[in-house]
């Protein structure tokens, strides 16, 4: 009974946390704009949390720079299970125009298991919402520690 309620609740209340791994701030603005009146992802129960310990879905933006890599790994390891990692924008997917730079150690898949990748520079809001819903499906599959 309780397991069923928890199972249902898990996809109804995704709290997101957002890590900037050397992003240009474009994707970050797009993510925050989703919480506004036009797209209003709060209708799915999304809440932007201030600390990784409250989060279910982690959005990573930016080509992973050498400076941010260790910090990003430490923050991601603090997110309690079950968690889903979403790479937002072209930068964490392929390093975009920063590929080959001396300070960039990406792409993100080299360091953490990525569940959903959203392309675009910056991604369209519809694409981000689509990625969010896909992330919810993956969250449903993952069994948590009780």
């Amino acid at each position, binding site marked *: 009974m*309780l*397991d069923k*309620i*928890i*199972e*249902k*609740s*898990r996809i*109804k*209340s995704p*709290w997101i946390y957002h890590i900037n791994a050397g992003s240009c701030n474009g994707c970050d603005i797009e993510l925050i704009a989703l919480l*506004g*009146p036009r797209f*209003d992802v*709060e*209708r*799915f*129960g999304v*809440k*932007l*949390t*201030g*600390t990784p*310990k*409250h989060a*279910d879905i982690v959005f990573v933006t930016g080509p992973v720079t050498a400076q941010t890599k260790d910090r990003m790994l430490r923050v991601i390891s*603090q997110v*309690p*299970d*079950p968690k889903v990692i979403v790479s937002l924008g072209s930068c964490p997917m392929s390093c975009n125009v920063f590929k080959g730079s001396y300070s960039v150690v990406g792409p993100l898949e080299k360091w953490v298991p990525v569940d959903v990748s959203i392309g675009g520079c910056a991604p369209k809001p519809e694409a981000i919402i689509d990625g969010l819903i896909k992330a919810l499906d993956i969250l449903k599959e993952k069994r*948590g*520690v*009780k």
Partner: protein
Amino acid sequence: MEVLKTLLLQMFYVLIFPGFLFCFVFGMFLSGIDRKMVARMQRRIGPPITQPFYDFFKLVGKDHIIPRKASKKAFLLAPIFGLISIVIISVFIPIFGFNFQGSTADIIVILYLITIPALSLVFGGSSSGSAYASIGISREMVTMLSYELPLVMILLSIGKKAGAAINGNVTFSLADIGKYQSLYGIIISKWALIPAAIAFLLIIPAEVGTVPFDVAEAETEICEGPLVEYSGLYLGIYKLTQAVKMFVMGSLFIALFFGGSGFSNIFLNIILMIIGVIITIVISVSFVRSILGRLKVEQTLKFFWTVPTALSAISLILVYLKY
């Protein structure tokens, strides 16, 4: 047999009706209504009203991490103490003439118990060993300091007004205040106490910790302050405590200013109180939350020690001058 019956009745009061179960369900719905109302006021669709239930049960099913630096026992026990004390307050608040716990000084008990959830936040935050939490607890203590003074003055002015008519003294009993209101009309109709009612409405957001006065849990500056290291079930208990606190403050407002005998039927009285609490919370929490930004710490202290303190002082003086 008589002892057993009283014991069972007390258990019922604490665990089922005005106590834990009712507070859990109605507090969660109240929190959901608040989120929905804020969303509608900002022209958003907003989450469903059942959203706080989903949040709570998701947090129950999630892993919880205890930091290595934390002192484990205080870290895990603090949220539970906060929840227990706020549930016990709900037993002391009468529903339109129906007293669950008649006592001569229940306002003083409520005043003591109402600080414990804030104190549990302070204990839990300080035992988590995080730098953000230590900033958060200092801010939480400043907030506590700022709303306690006007709250005590409001309760004192109501106690004087009701007590002068009942037994000639200041009364600290919610039952006496209810009796006064059923004899002489509700307290909000006495014009000397209207400033006190406005001050009480301004205190509710600070007590609950919502936006203009949520300096302690500012998620954009200090990562949710004392809650920064909490996760899973224990975070869920804090969220539940906050929801129940919203319900308790709303019903305390109704009992103090709109009390009296109500209808003869207890179920009608409960429905009346629920509607009253919803209206109170929408006016004092949701409306304020949707139009204002967060104040600074000094601004919170300055605001509370000027506007609500002055309003409650006006009421206190007027009541002592027998208006």
